[in-house]
Every structure is written in structure tokens, then in C-alpha cells.
């Protein structure tokens, strides 16, 4: 009998082409996703070297970072943004790469398009010039974010030079309490293990909590692996994975689907396999979580108080002081009740149908507080259409949210959606870095979509369980 292996080892071994002179592995990349920001220079490098795209049928493109979410009239008012979309179109056309363009009805954030189209599949390797590529690990793929020179490498050779990662299994057992969501789980994990705890590791998320999660929830968790320093994170494929994929455009049909399903399920970590590290977390210990600082690990439960420099570990004092200064929060005070200026529901972390549906369930009958700008940005055109078909958009509009077109939007503010001055934003996105949302003095508080909805209607950081009676409703 062969030695039991975890999923990462199986995928790595299957895709390892050969060992390189420096000891790294030449790893075959099954699927390559590209977008307008990190690919143009890579195509330029290829042209300079006179190299063709090796497997154009294994690269898929969409446009997400720079697209406006209000008016889609082209040319875009922002000439730089317009140049970027034209460049992507030109490069895809010249190389024979499929692009899910604005006119396709299938455009969206690249990490939503792959799963929606069934391009993201279990047991594969996937790369994209974007750190949140870890999202695709929800399907049991080894999915890694890469830089532009590596985008060049994949275009030219369909491979990457990589060093093997260690694997840490993060097991969350028990049941999540009412009002606690996938976003809270991953924020809690990053808080516990640190923003650099995952360096050198792939994270395997396992245990009852992940077993019970939908694919959309698993994507939320895997998406933020990189915020914990892990280049990729994954959930083992199971019947939930197979059911999600069935019938999607790039998934085989009929007998071929049955065969693929069997292969996908067999690719899961073997019983009795080993890990380089195992971390166990009790689901009962997790409460709705929000960030208070300037990295995603600086997080607390909604009913906790903002840390103080004095009570922080010596090693953290400088970063706590820096974070407090930027965030302008009162040390030792409750985070609950902190006034907000903007509520943003969007990004590759939380802009899927279930995110909007869940928020809409509680938002109905409420109004966004006076003076608050609230924007809802579906992650893809398909999500937007589905929300509109189900009337979810009407709930958001009636509550006073702006209902936008699909894109990355205010997660990183490369389009016109930006914070102004030191506005504080309740955000369902993934990064609370200084300046991330477009204003150098802007402030970001990360949270789940339902917490964004609660913040929008109260005008302050709020406990959605209290605002919407979530706990009671579920009890």
C-alpha cells in the first residue's frame, strides 16, 4: 500500500515536471488566470523575447481591478484605465486567449469568474497574478498568487519555478454560533496565527465547520489565506464541491463528469496522511470579528475593546501604536459604536450571491443611516444578474445602498470608488492596510457582509446579532 498523502502532496507530485538546478521544482500550471493589472508587462516581456504563449487554451482573462462600477461607457473617463483594458483585449486576441470581457455577461473579479465557469477544478494547479488566487483552493486546487515575471513564465512555458510548501491543517470543530460567518472564521484564524504565521505553508482547512460550509463560504475562507501569510489554502473536495461544479460551462458532461467526479474525490487528503503542523480551533470560541488596526491580524470580537499599547506584548507595541494612530481609535474603548462614513459590500472575499442574499434577509425594512455612503458591488455580472432576478438588488436599493456593476471596486480603489480623507469604511473586503481603499488617511474595518449591513443601518460598527436579532432568530 502506498503512503497516505495529503492533497497538496498529491497535486504537487502530479504536476512536478522536473527538478531545477537550484533545487526548485518546475511545476506545471494547469490553469492560468489573468487580468488587466499584472499581465501587460508580462506580454511585453514575451514580445521582447520573441516567445509565443505556450498553451493559450489554458489561460483565461477578465477585467476587474480598474473597471468603473457606475458607468460602463467606453472609453472610460480614466484614460489610464482605458489603456489597460485595451491592452488586455489586444494581448488576448493576439495570443488566442479567451477573455470574459464586459460585453460577455460573464465578466467579474477573476476569482469569481474561474469558479462560476467551472474553470477552477479540484486536483489541479492554478496560478494568477493576484495574491487572492488562494480563493480557488476552496475546490481542492493548489492555487497560488504570482508576480508579473511569473505570469510571463506561465504564459511562455505553462510552468513555474517553485519551492515545495509545508502543509498546516487547520481544523475547526463543533458548530459556529448563530451570527458567526465564514469571514469571522478566517479573521479569527489570522488573528490567532498571525499575518506572517503561514509563510512557507499551504493551509488545509478541515473539520466539521468547513465540511458543512457551502462552496461560497469556503471561497471566503481560502481567499484570505494569503492575509495569514500562506500562499495557498484549500478545502478537500467532497460532494459539495462536485454538486457546485456540475453543469458549469467548462466542466465535462455525462459520463465524463462522473469520471471527473471520481477523480476529484480521490484527490482529497488520504486518511492517516501527515501534516507539517496541525492547529485545532473550537467553533464555539468564534464570535463576529472586526479589525481594529492596519493589518488583517489586528482583529477583535465585536464585544471586545480596542487594544492599548501598554497591555500589548513588547514585540507588538510599535505596530499597535502605529495602528492606533492611523485608525484614530481610542485605546481601551469598545469598538462597537465607532462611527463609520462608508459601508462597502463587495470584493473577491465577499461579493457572491449568498453574501448579498444573507445581508438582504436582514436589511429588508431597514434604512442606511443618514450621512452614510453605502455601496453594494457584486463580484461578477452573473452574481449581479442573479441578485436582480431574485429581487435582492431591490432590497439594497430600498435600504439606501447604491447598487453597482461588477468589479474589485473599493477593495483596492484602482477605479473611481475611493475613500476620501480619513473616512472610516465598514468593509467586507480583505485588507485594511494604510491607504488601501484609495485615501492615504482612509481607515478600513474588515468584517462579514452582515456586519457591514448592520454598520450601514446604525452608522457605526455594530453587532449584527443585536441589530438584526440574528442570534434570537436562529435560537
Amino acid at each position, binding site marked *: 500500500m502506498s503512503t497516505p498523502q495529503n492533497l497538496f502532496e498529491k497535486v504537487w507530485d502530479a504536476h512536478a*515536471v522536473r527538478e531545477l538546478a537550484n533545487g526548485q521544482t518546475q511545476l*506545471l500550471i494547469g490553469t492560468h488566470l489573468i487580468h488587466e493589472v499584472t499581465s501587460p508587462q508580462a506580454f511585453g516581456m514575451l514580445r521582447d523575447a520573441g516567445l509565443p504563449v505556450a498553451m493559450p487554451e489554458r489561460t483565461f482573462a477578465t477585467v476587474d481591478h480598474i473597471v468603473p462600477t457606475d458607468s460602463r461607457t467606453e472609453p472610460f473617463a480614466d484614460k489610464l484605465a482605458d489603456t489597460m483594458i485595451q491592452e488586455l483585449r489586444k494581448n488576448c486576441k493576439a495570443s488566442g486567449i479567451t477573455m470574459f470581457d464586459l460585453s460577455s455577461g460573464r465578466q467579474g473579479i477573476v476569482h469569481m469568474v474561474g469558479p462560476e465557469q467551472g474553470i477552477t477544478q479540484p486536483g489541479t494547479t492554478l496560478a494568477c497574478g493576484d495574491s487572492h488566487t488562494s480563493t480557488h483552493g476552496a475546490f481542492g486546487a493548489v492555487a497560488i498568487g504570482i508576480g508579473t515575471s511569473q505570469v*510571463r513564465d506561465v504564459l511562455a512555458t505553462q510552468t513555474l519555478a517553485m519551492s515545495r510548501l509545508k502543509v498546516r491543517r487547520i481544523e475547526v470543530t463543533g458548530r459556529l454560533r448563530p451570527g458567526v460567518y465564514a469571514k469571522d472564521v478566517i479573521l479569527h484564524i489570522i488573528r490567532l496565527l498571525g499575518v506572517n504565521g503561514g509563510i512557507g505553508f499551504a493551509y488545509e482547512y478541515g473539520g466539521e465547520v468547513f465540511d458543512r460550509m457551502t462552496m461560497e463560504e469556503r471561497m471566503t475562507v481560502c481567499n484570505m489565506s494569503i492575509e495569514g501569510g500562506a500562499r495557498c489554502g484549500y478545502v478537500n473536495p467532497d460532494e459539495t464541491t462536485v454538486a457546485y461544479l456540475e453543469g458549469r460551462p467548462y466542466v465535462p458532461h455525462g459520463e465524463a463528469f462522473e469520471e471527473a467526479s471520481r477523480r476529484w474525490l480521490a484527490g482529497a487528503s488520504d486518511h492517516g496522511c501527515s501534516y507539517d503542523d496541525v492547529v485545532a480551533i473550537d467553533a464555539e470560541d468564534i464570535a463576529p470579528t472586526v479589525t481594529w488596526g492596519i493589518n488583517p491580524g489586528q482583529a477583535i470580537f465585536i464585544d471586545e475593546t480596542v487594544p492599548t499599547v501598554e497591555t500589548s506584548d513588547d514585540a507588538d507595541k510599535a505596530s499597535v501604536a502605529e495602528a492606533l494612530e492611523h485608525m484614530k481609535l481610542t485605546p481601551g474603548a469598545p469598538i462597537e459604536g465607532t462611527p463609520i462614513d462608508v459601508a462597502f459590500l463587495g470584493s473577491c472575499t465577499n461579493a457572491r450571491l449568498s453574501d448579498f442574499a444573507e445581508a438582504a434577509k436582514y436589511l429588508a425594512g431597514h434604512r442606511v443611516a443618514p450621512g452614510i455612503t453605502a455601496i453594494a458591488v457584486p463580484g461578477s455580472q452573473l452574481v449581479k444578474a442573479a441578485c436582480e432576478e431574485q429581487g435582492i438588488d431591490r432590497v439594497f436599493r430600498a435600504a439606501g445602498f447604491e447598487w453597482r456593476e461588477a468589479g474589485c471596486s473599493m477593495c483596492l480603489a484602482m477605479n473611481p470608488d475611493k475613500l476620501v480623507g480619513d473616512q472610516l469604511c465598514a468593509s467586507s473586503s480583505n485588507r485594511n492596510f494604510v491607504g488601501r481603499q484609495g485615501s*492615504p488617511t482612509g481607515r478600513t474595518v474588515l468584517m462579514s457582509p452582515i456586519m457591514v449591513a448592520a454598520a450601514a443601518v446604525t452608522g457605526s460598527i455594530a453587532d449584527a446579532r443585536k441589530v438584526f436579532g440574528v442570534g434570537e432568530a436562529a435560537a
Partner: protein
Amino acid sequence: MALQRIGEVRGRAVYLPGDDIDTDRIIPARYLKVVTFEGLGEALFHDVRFDETGGAKDHPLNDPRFEGASILISGSNFGCGSSREHAPQAIYRAGFQAVVATSFAEIFFGNSTTLGIPCVTVQDDDLAPLAASVETDPGAELRIDLEAMELHAGGHRFALDMPATARDGLLQGRWDPLSELLEGSTAVATTATRLGYLPQV
């Protein structure tokens, strides 16, 4: 594609205090709206160096004592966050040839190595004395020796660390893997065929 062998970096240094310096801070997203990497050096750390009217803030990179520094020194998890290669490109194009930190985020590390920018780590306990020596004598030349894995600064010697794969790549002039990856095309085709879900070459 013969590349330069990188065994040593000499130059003056600047110390940028802090942990978890993310790539949004190294280069804000609005500077990513470009189709080449040219000119990115001017955007390096823009929003922490300049206020909203363009006035210079109190920042080590604005301090004339450190002008012309080619070695950047910082804390742990340097380069975390976004995968944007624009970050090391901006560092390189602003005149830096090496980064010293107590640890690096993985994507940033890989991006930098591929550009021939050594990212070396010092022990946590060595960071303060190293920073102090740079502050005390900003004009002193530091020497990063990748053969001996040592950093020489103002009469002090600090042990350096770096994954063997990256070190070997720099020392052997193989830090950009593209030509070696291209040489593997036959083996790539074999692996693709075996996997089944890829185009049969």
C-alpha cells in the same frame, strides 16, 4: 540568457522601521495603472513620504542623510499583501539593489529574486544594532556577502540567511528561471499528457 552572478551588494543603507510593511504601502494601487514598469521608482512609498499636497513628510527616504542608499533595511514580513511585482520594481528603480529584513512575505521574496534583488534576513536580535549602525553613520558602506552569508556594517558582522534555492540562483546567475523553464519543454509535454486535463502537446 546569461545573467549576471550576484555574490555581493555594496552600498549605503537606509533603515525603515516597522513590521508588516505591505505592498500597498510600498506602491499605492493607483500607480499600478500602467502597462510598463518604467518610472515606478518615483512612486516608491509615495503616500507615506508625501502629504496630499505633495509636501515631504518625515520619512527615512526623504532624509538627505540617506540619499543614494542602495540597501533597504526593515522589520518582519516585509512585502506582505498584494502580489504586485510593481513593489520590487519600484524598489529597484529607486536605486535599491538589496533588501535586508527579519523576514519576508513569500510572493514579494520570489518577485524580488526573479529581478535579481537579494532579499536576505538577519536575526531579530541583530536588527536593532544594525539599524543603530546605519543611523550613527549614514555614510558608511555596507557589504552583503552572499558567499559567506554575512553583512558587514560599520565594523560589525551580522549573519545572514536566505533559502538555498534563491542564494544559489543569485550566485550562479540563474535568478531568472525563464530560460531553464523553456529548456524543460519536452518534460512539460510528457507531464501534461500524463495529467490528462491539459492540452495534449
